[in-house]
């Protein structure tokens, strides 16, 4: 008798644009910096100041819209969103209400091997607010707060999706794709940990097959892709329980509590916001020249999906692998650089997805911080391919390269790690191992193929891992099969 519920998810994403200066004044957008040192009368909202639009913000917003397959408005304007909060110096945010710069776009995601298109309702420009530091452990426990206005006026684009996602996995895939796209077109650093990529989720449930949308809740405060996934899964479960018991969902904003793993209502006694939007009289409208849009479109780099296609078609990677490699521009670029010097794309891909990402993640590092030059990476793979070192050795050399940035030849030399493939050199040890492991020898001769593995292992032990296992295997078989 259980009703099947369908999850409906829409995401509202904010990305900080990496222009040199803020959206309406010439202060730096640089992250960090001592409190209230990246400010001026304009972004402080002092009496009498006026905003002037940074042209590059418009350009970046159009870039983002084009990369998301949006229609670019020919006429756009700014509106004031009025509300009181100490991080908002003018007590209004300059944003866009009814005539956003971009709309009706989409992006494609891949979940469990299936492709799906998620609609992008709109992309608009707005200014960021300041930062609040609280005098206690949480905002409600503090007796006071401290305001830093460095971040006010940093340009943002807000990207609103259609409520097309049906699971936490899809939502996560959307975020990952969106992040990759914005990274590829170089408009934002898109780092969730630094706040240059932020996400709020709107979640509702409805009986499967129903067209009507259920009551939604808005979830805030998800600071990583993992949080996003967990939060959505929790909220869906929470709503499902309520509905199954015959209750109704209250439309409200809820905050994700990372520690407790739950969403908490942010309902206060305050009434719902009435933002009283009206066109900002201090800014004039923007008329977009289609020629300019064309130029921007032409200047866009190869986007993630196209790049993935190319890696599959031209380099023979699997769709899955190509997907991972093109998941971030840095990784895709790095892959290209290594593959250019060592033309075995599959091997390169495996190493990047395996060892390289492992070490980067362990050190919480980004590719640009890694010490391994693409040329050296390629050199290492060549050393393994031509048998100079074994696979196991290569891994060890790689770790050293990661640590020190030295080139592989130097490391191999220093550690005396050259692989022993010379049959004469190995013959003596093989004799010794055969002599000391008669049990295994007899097992092998009796038909246990696997026993040779043990013997190979023993030779490897004797040679401190430097013997070429392939050659050892061959020689052992020669000896034992006679």
């Amino acid at each position, binding site marked *: 008798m259980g009703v099947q519920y369908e999850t409906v998810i829409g995401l509202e994403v904010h990305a900080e644009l990496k222009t040199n200066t803020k959206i309406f004044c010439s202060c730096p957008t640089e992250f960090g910096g001592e409190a209230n040192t990246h400010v001026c009368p304009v972004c402080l909202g002092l009496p*009498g100041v*006026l905003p002037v639009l940074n042209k590059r913000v418009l350009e970046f917003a159009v870039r983002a819209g084009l990369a998301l397959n949006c229609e670019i408005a020919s006429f756009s304007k700014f509106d004031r969103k009025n509300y009181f909060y100490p991080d908002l110096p003018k*007590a209004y945010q300059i944003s866009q209400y009814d005539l956003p710069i971009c709309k009706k776009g989409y992006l494609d995601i891949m979940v469990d091997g299936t492709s799906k298109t998620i609609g992008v309702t709109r992309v608009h420009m707005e200014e960021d607010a300041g930062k609040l530091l609280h005098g206690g452990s949480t905002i409600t426990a503090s007796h006071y*707060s401290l305001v830093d206005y460095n971040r006010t006026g940093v340009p943002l684009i807000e990207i609103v999706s259609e409520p097309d996602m049906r699971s936490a996995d899809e939502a996560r895939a959307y975020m990952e794709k969106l992040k990759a796209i914005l990274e590829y077109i170089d408009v934002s650093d898109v780092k969730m940990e630094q706040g240059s990529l932020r996400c709020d989720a709107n979640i509702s449930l409805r009986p499967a097959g129903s067209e009507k949308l259920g009551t939604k809740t808005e979830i805030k405060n998800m600071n990583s892709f993992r949080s996003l996934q967990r939060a959505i899964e929790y909220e869906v479960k929470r709503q499902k329980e309520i509905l199954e018991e015959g209750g109704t969902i209250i439309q409200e904003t809820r905050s994700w509590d990372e520690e407790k793993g739950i969403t908490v209502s942010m309902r206060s006694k305050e009434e719902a916001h009435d933002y009283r939007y009206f066109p900002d*009289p201090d800014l004039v409208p923007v008329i977009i020249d289609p020629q300019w849009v064309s130029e921007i479109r032409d200047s866009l780099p190869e986007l993630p999906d196209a790049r993935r296609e190319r890696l599959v078609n031209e380099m023979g990677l699997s769709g899955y692998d190509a997907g991972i490699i093109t998941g971030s521009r840095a990784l895709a670029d790095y892959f290209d650089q290594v593959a250019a010097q060592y033309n075995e794309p599959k091997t390169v891909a495996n190493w990047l997805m395996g060892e390289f990402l492992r070490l980067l993640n362990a050190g919480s590092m980004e590719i640009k911080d890694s010490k391994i030059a693409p040329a050296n990476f390629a050199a290492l793979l060549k050393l393994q391919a031509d048998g100079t070192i074994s696979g196991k050795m290569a891994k060890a050399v790689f770790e050293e390269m990661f640590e020190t940035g030295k080139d592989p030849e130097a490391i191999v030399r220093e550690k005396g790690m050259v692989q022993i493939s010379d049959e004469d050199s190995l013959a003596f040890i093989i004799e010794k191992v055969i002599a000391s492991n008669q049990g295994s020898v007899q097992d092998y001769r009796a038909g246990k193929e696997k026993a040779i593995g043990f013997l190979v292992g023993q030779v490897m032990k004797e040679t401190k891992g430097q013997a070429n296992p392939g050659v050892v295997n061959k020689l052992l078989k020669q000896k034992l099969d006679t």
Partner: protein
Amino acid sequence: MHERREGEINLSLTGLTAHELCELLRNREISSVELTRAHLERINTLEDKIRAFVTVTADLALSQAKETDAKRLRGEELPPLAGIPVALKDNMCTKGIKTTCGSKILYNFIPPYDAAVAEKLNEAGAILVGKCNMDEYAMGSSTENSGFYPTRNPYDFNAVPGGSSGGSAAAVAAGESVIALGSDTGGSIRQPAAFCGVIGLKPTYGAVSRYGLVAYASSLDQIGPFSKDVTDCALALNVIAGHDPKDSTSAPVDVPDYTKFLVNDIKGMKIGMPREYTGQGIDPEVNVCLRQAAARLEELGAVCEEVSLPHTEYALPAYYIIAPAEASSNLARYDGVQYGLRVEGDDIISMYSKTRSQGFGEEVKRRIMLGTYALSSGYYDAYYLKALKVRTLVKQDFDKAFEKYDCLLTPTTPSVAFNFGDKINDPLAMYLSDVCTIPVNLAGIPAMSMPFGMVKGRPVGIQLIGRAFDEGTLLRVGYALEQNSDLTRPRPELKGVM
């Protein structure tokens, strides 16, 4: 230099215009320090009664004057207003100098930057003598809404000087400053100019940078000069007009030399007189002065004809939706967080509410609430959007009239200055005193008030309205009238004070 007794120097120097004084300074007949001292002394004498200033910058003025004199002695080329005392309405930010907007909530605010016009006046060599009193946040028509004290009309101490730039108008009328700047959103330069018998010009919207002008209603506010005659008005406009990249609404047009329009010839010019500005509600004695002015203009060769601006009656209600709506948003930043008054509260909302309730006066609160209401959910279309549409109609009326006429002539105000207390308890009555000036702001076009006659000892002002960016025509017509009539340069008697 002649020997003159100090009292005489004061009286004669503070009665002269900027162009006359520039001549004297250039010829070294007087020094900047002398001139500045004369004005500071006059301020000292009169301020108890007039109270035109919130802040008098005596030390700064004298040091600027000394510097100017030194430069002149060295033979340096000096800018156009070098040595001329000027005053700024206290809603224009002056770096390092208290700027209050006539409000308790900014009682101690010291801006860390200069308004564009303050910078321009400084570059032009002007000497800043002080910041003038005003209706709080430029909301008012009498300066009775100042958070500190009212300013008195130099012609009659029982009368208001008008508002909201009452202090600036009174300062020029009383000879405390040669030129003063005010701001005009619904008539706040022109109406006090009329009440105080001086020239007051509101330029075309966008002609003068608003950067540093504390906003009341952003789509209507403009800065303009008060002066003793039309020539000074042109000189002031030369200095303050011009495109400013820091103001997105600043017009990218070339600034002419406005003094070129000061030709004593208006033959063949066509002047329209909108009938909607002379009917019921206008004091008959004011109408008499208007007709006298029209007659004089015709004698000088112009043609004055009646014209209709049919949507005039809708301008005032539209204004009193648009201006408060924008104001409600512009004034939201006064919350005690970064500057100004802060009244402690248990929590931030309590602090906001207490600060704003205690810091703002009644009229400001009234307009904030009116504006918030007009923008609030469910009312936006009926009020704000409707008002913006009516604005289009008002503008179209003017556009149509200017197809036929070079400029328009109307009274500036329905009556001469009223007494203190007459309208302060009736907000609507106060609003209605702006009926002749408001339509001009909605259309964004320039207008100038100049004195023409007196009624019961109080000056009458007539208004010339022009096409966008055609301040030249207003100066030309105004100059011709001024040069050919005695009624255009009144002087207050200042009984009992001087």
